[in-house]
């Protein structure tokens, strides 16, 4: 068969120049995504574009603080993305808690729960800074240093342990079932009488 490793430089170039973003604005940095995606900064010049489906996406932008409730969805979405996948964290909050350092509902260190490749400073980062982060991410992809997805696979137990510590065991099932009784109109019957 063909030795696919021959094509690796081409693949890396394609991965670098065609990063699709999960359209999941997780925090206040989401307000800077529209300027970036639209005419003023237009990151589609580098082939970066938001994609509604996580199955096709490569890049996950953690735009700012992350609450545990969102983190659950982030982890599920992150796991849905096919390898290789990259994570770029915006601003102070994912790094060390940011202004919510004493808040009970904001994650302090994001890298305990999912691997992150690039960090940008700022609250919130200017679009230019985010562009700089994307450039940095491209460099890392080309040199093969953006290996967060490998780390996640290798240290899956550790990440899983941290996640379970934070959310409690079996949080995936619990989250999925949480709303079913309320959808089933059980309460409505009581009200009708």
């Amino acid at each position, binding site marked *: 068969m063909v030795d696919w490793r021959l094509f690796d430089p081409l693949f890396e170039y394609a991965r670098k120049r065609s990063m699709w973003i999960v359209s999941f604005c997780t925090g206040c940095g989401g307000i800077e995504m529209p300027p970036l995606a639209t005419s003023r900064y237009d990151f589609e010049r580098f082939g970066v574009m938001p994609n509604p489906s996580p199955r096709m996406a490569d890049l996950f932008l953690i735009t700012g603080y992350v609450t545990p409730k969102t983190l659950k969805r982030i982890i599920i979405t992150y796991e849905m993305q096919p390898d290789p996948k990259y994570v770029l964290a915006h601003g102070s909050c994912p*790094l060390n808690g940011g202004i919510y350092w004493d808040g009970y509902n904001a994650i302090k260190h994001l890298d305990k729960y999912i691997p992150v490749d690039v960090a940008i400073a700022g609250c919130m980062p200017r679009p*230019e800074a985010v562009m700089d982060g994307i450039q940095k991410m491209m460099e890392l992809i080309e040199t093969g240093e953006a290996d967060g997805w490998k780390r996640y696979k290798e240290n899956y137990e550790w990440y899983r342990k941290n996640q379970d510590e934070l959310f409690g065991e079996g949080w995936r099932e619990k989250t999925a079932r949480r709303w079913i009784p309320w959808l089933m109109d059980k309460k409505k019957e009581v009200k009708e009488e």
Partner: protein
Amino acid sequence: MEEITFKVAPESKVKKKPSFLKPWLSLKYLFKKPVTIKIPYESIEPAEGYRGFHTLDWNKCVGCNFCGQICPARAIEMTWIEVDGKMEKRPHPKIDYGRCTFCQFCVEVCPPGALGFVESYMLTTEWNEEELQLFDWVPIHPDKFKEIQETYRDWRFPVEKIKFDKETKEVTYYLRNGEEFKFKILGYGIRPPKPPAKPTVKAEEKAQAKPEEKTQTKKPELDAESEKAD
């Protein structure tokens, strides 16, 4: 009785008629120049007075911890520093960009005007412990910061790498223009550190001090705060 009058817009002014043809007019922009700023080939400068990274005049700083008290994110920690074997007389603020919200209230309240800020805002690093040290620094002198900024004009962080030795608490700044800058962190807090710094004992003390802390949090008194700080 109070009488007021205000204007209510008539419906005809508010409502619009649907049209099939008018949207086609927008195609005129096909041949106009795009409004895009082509970063990284073009750059735009932040406005004058944009709240970016901090600067600190080490000689002016009196270590009053006003900045630490006003900081909404508690990103500022007063740090006792030893430069070239000589301890600075007053502690200096150490700013954590993993917390800082760039509100610059600290600059506003600084009584001697030692803290300042420049327009630089860009700091991008790979996410590993070594590089993340860049996010935690004692700001450098404004003149030096501005000098570096004038040379590069790309609004980046002036330090390329910060090496922090956990054993000796020695910090080395590798500035972008090749200079190196070394100092030693002796301890944190308002009060000067005790000469024999024993981290293990300290940790125990902290564990004991914890219940006290909790009681104090209920009555937020800023004066109590500066006392308790080691």
